């Protein structure tokens, strides 16, 4: 369980997160949407300790992210993260990308890490690309490898930061299919995305952020059919055409 308790973050004078509150229960999929600059990426980066925040508290399985005694490296092992621009290691093959952390962090043998990687490549439908370099893969293929790389650490949580927004339309589905399958298999997920079809299919809750605040939250039907704020209405009308 991830508990976000009234966190506040500033970049200098700029109040980027304001009293953000949220609880993500085990097995849930939460979708975060909102206009550019509303603080969605910043929120994800606070959860796994990539960015510090000044006020409030985040607990991951009751472990405080803010506590200086917390081993952030250990904590990050259980929170996978997928990025808009894939961020595969360009000098490594798909297989090497996936096996690096299990081998260096978990100290798995090469064989064990490769067995795990093959299982994941199968899961994301990329077995034949094990030895390809990122530059020779399409965006959709790179993103599926990136998902496999995160899953290789056997995380309890997965965070996605606009995983399909850098993709050509014909590749979006292949990535969403993998994410839907993950959600249905019971992974706890936090997804920043504007793919409302995905939200409809798997989201337990949708959070709408604007200017560093959560201004609306609810189920897909609540949010989609009955938005409360003008900001959300405007946002929905923009992403629907």
């Amino acid at each position: 369980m991830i508990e976000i308790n009234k966190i506040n973050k500033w970049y200098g004078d700029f109040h980027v997160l304001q009293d953000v509150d949220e609880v993500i229960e085990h097995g849930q999929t939460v979708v975060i949407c909102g206009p550019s600059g509303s603080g969605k990426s910043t929120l994800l980066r606070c959860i796994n300790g990539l960015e510090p925040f000044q006020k409030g508290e985040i607990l991951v399985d009751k472990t405080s992210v803010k506590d200086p005694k917390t081993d952030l490296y250990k904590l990050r092992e259980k929170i996978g993260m997928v990025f808009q621009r894939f961020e595969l290691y360009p000098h490594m093959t798909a297989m090497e990308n996936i096996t690096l952390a299990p081998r260096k962090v978990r100290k798995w043998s090469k064989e064990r890490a490769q067995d795990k990687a093959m299982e994941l490549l199968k899961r994301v439908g990329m077995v034949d690309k094990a030895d390809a370099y990122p530059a020779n893969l399409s965006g959709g293929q790179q993103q599926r490898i990136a998902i496999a790389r995160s899953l290789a650490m056997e995380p309890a949580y997965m965070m996605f930061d606009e995983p399909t927004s850098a993709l050509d339309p014909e590749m979006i589905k292949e990535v969403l299919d993998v994410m839907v399958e993950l959600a249905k298999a019971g992974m706890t997920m936090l997804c920043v995305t504007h793919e409302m079809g995905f939200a409809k299919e798997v989201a337990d809750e949708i959070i709408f952020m604007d200017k560093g605040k959560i201004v609306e939250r609810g189920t897909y039907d609540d949010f989609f059919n009955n938005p409360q704020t003008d900001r959300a209405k405007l946002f929905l009308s923009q992403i629907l055409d």
Partner: protein
Amino acid sequence: MFDVIGRNFVFLMGGLLTTFELAILALAGGIGLGMLVGLARLSKNPWIYYPITAYVNLLRNIPLILVIFWFYFVMPIITGDAMAPFPAAVIAFVIFEATYFGEIFRAGYQTISKDLTAAAFSTGMTYSQTARYILIPIAFKRMAPSLITQSIVTFQDTSLAFVIGLTELVRRSSIVDNMEVRSIELYGFAAFVYFIVCYTGSQISLYYENKAREVNLI
């Protein structure tokens, strides 16, 4: 006319060997230390950033020949022990070249996106694992042409060690010249040897540059 070279060939080649030994140690040390200097130059920790930045700015604004002199003449005063020319030259070169290689690596690290580093951290890798397996190898590949160019410059610069009496190629040429007074042939030969080594190096650099552009892999 070139009989003077033939007669002294073994002696001169012994000098070239010293040149190579110095160059290899200077490059290994300079590049190795440079990788870390480049990381330190991007550090958010002021205790790391400021001292290393001061060191880089200091050394990059002093002529190499003075750095060599300084190590040779001043270090013994501090340590109380006279230093042989070869180790003095190696230390001076490593410390000097690391600042130049450090700036090349810094530029290489800066081509790596913040999110790529975040991706590595998000799998639980530590800073040093990320540096070792991600940042350094990528910077190495992307900056290969500049690294080779700087290596060629370093190789040429090793001739400056003759000022502290290191008997490398140029020094040995001058020793023979003092006995036989055949400056044109001797220094011509030394220049030719430097040219061959450096030209080969620059061609290798060009090859990698073209290959990198073609493949556009990294």
